[in-house]
């Protein structure tokens, strides 16, 4: 059997460790290299149980490998808007927005969350792109704006239908926050910056905490009966069911926000004014429609179709490729997302997936595959 070579190709001694590394090991996690970090892919209960627990109660994720960056200075909003198509200017204090760094050709350098803080912008970027993102910011941001990377901060995500009940118990008021807002809260006496956001499709929080307080916070959260630790394996199956993109797979330098179905992140003012890298291409695709689109795919039967699988039309012509694919534990079957020629992007379009040399029937399906359950006001 061809077992995965996880953990065998990289010397674990060369990998970064989050402040929760020892806790993961203590909890019996299987550790794997991910974006230069030694991270838990699963705990002893396994990915299916972790996935289902997050949808049923609350899961605690260590996402401290992600990059946390502060922009400070009077011109921060204007300078960031020169790099992203999202509307940062009209972001209310304490509000969070999802956007992306675009390249001159309209490709997506990374996707990120931006929060307007009292005297700064707070960015959370992908682990695998944070070095490039910070270099990009430092090279492109002008004036008296400072770019402050914060490796001293850890990031925990508490996700699931019980997350608000749990956090409100430890930080009264947390349950009254609404989706995509941020507040400074004391959780069991630990000063944290709490965002009502996540990457699972469930209600939940992302908690930025000083690295030296992260272990205490994680233990305190895990002491609540609803909360179990969740690894990167379930994080991936949860976000795939939620139809959320993973940079480096579903979006990257070769895909534009419009092809990726992320036009909703570009507000009216930015569409009118442009002024971000690749605006000509992105706005033209918005007007005329892109030649290909990211779509959801549901294979018939139970065989998963993985990343890289070719997508063909009924006549056998190549439409595109799967960018993320696997098994959806809540959906109870295989699911995928990928790019297809625009002519095949309508829901219900019948396609064929070439799985190990055999054409398997599938249909273009709406995303999310599992409905989002965010705490929208």
């Amino acid at each position: 059997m061809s077992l995965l070579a996880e953990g065998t190709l990289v010397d674990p001694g060369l990998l970064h460790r989050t402040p929760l590394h020892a806790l993961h090991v203590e909890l019996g996690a299987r550790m794997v290299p991910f974006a230069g970090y030694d991270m838990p892919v699963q705990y002893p209960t396994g990915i299916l149980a972790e996935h289902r627990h997050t949808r049923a109660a609350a899961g605690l994720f260590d996402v401290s490998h992600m990059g946390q960056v502060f922009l400070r200075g009077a011109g921060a909003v204007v300078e960031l808007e020169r790099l992203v198509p999202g509307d940062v200017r009209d972001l209310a204090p304490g509000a969070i927005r999802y956007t992306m760094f675009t390249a001159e050709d309209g490709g997506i350098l990374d996707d990120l969350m931006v929060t307007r803080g009292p005297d700064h912008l707070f960015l959370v970027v992908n682990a695998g792109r944070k070095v490039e993102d910070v270099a990009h910011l430092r090279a492109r941001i002008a004036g008296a704006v400072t770019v402050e990377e914060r490796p001293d901060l850890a990031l925990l995500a508490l996700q699931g239908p019980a997350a608000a009940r749990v956090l409100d118990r430890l930080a009264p008021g947390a349950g009254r926050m609404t989706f995509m807002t941020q507040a400074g809260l004391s959780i069991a006496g630990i000063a944290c910056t709490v965002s009502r956001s996540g990457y699972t499709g469930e209600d939940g929080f992302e908690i930025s905490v000083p690295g030296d307080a992260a272990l205490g916070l994680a233990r305190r959260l895990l002491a609540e009966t609803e909360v179990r630790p969740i690894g990167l394996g379930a994080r991936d199956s949860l976000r795939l069911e939620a139809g959320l993109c993973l940079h480096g797979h579903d979006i990257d330098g070769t895909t534009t926000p419009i092809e990726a179905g992320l036009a909703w992140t570009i507000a009216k003012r930015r569409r009118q004014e442009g002024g971000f890298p690749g605006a000509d291409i992105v706005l033209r695709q918005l007007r005329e429609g892109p030649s290909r689109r990211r779509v959801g795919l549901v294979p018939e039967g139970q065989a998963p179709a993985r990343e890289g699988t070719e997508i063909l039309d009924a006549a056998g012509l190549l439409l595109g490729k799967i960018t993320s694919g696997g098994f959806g534990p809540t959906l109870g079957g295989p699911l995928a997302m990928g790019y297809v020629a625009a002519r095949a992007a309508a829901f219900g379009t019948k396609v064929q997936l070439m799985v190990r040399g055999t054409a398997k029937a599938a249909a273009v399906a709406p995303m999310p595959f599992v409905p989002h359950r965010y705490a929208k006001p």
Partner: protein
Amino acid sequence: MSARRYTKDHEWIIVDGDIATVGITDFAQEQLGDVVFVDLPAIGKEVTKGGEAAVVESVKAASEVYAPIAGTVVAVNDGLAGEPAKVNAEPFGGGWFMKLKVKDPSELDGLLDEAAYRAFVAESH
């Protein structure tokens, strides 16, 4: 019935007369994690020693399962279609993959016995 024998690729095989039953080991299923799909060969397929005979899919990834010896597929475990998690729960029992008509019994001699397989796993992982 012969004693169970093993490959270094973590398949097991038991021979009864000229029919061999093949599956993956407890170590293999533990490494894979939750099995969600098993792609089994067609009845009548000729498999070669070390050749791909089946595919087992976990939540994370697909892995090939190799035939420990050459033979012809005479039966597959249809129960895995509805209950792939049997590979995790009963890797040496209800989670079997296929039965082969043995082509050359001498190929079994090169496989590991239980003690040798245990030693191999302990030393390499």
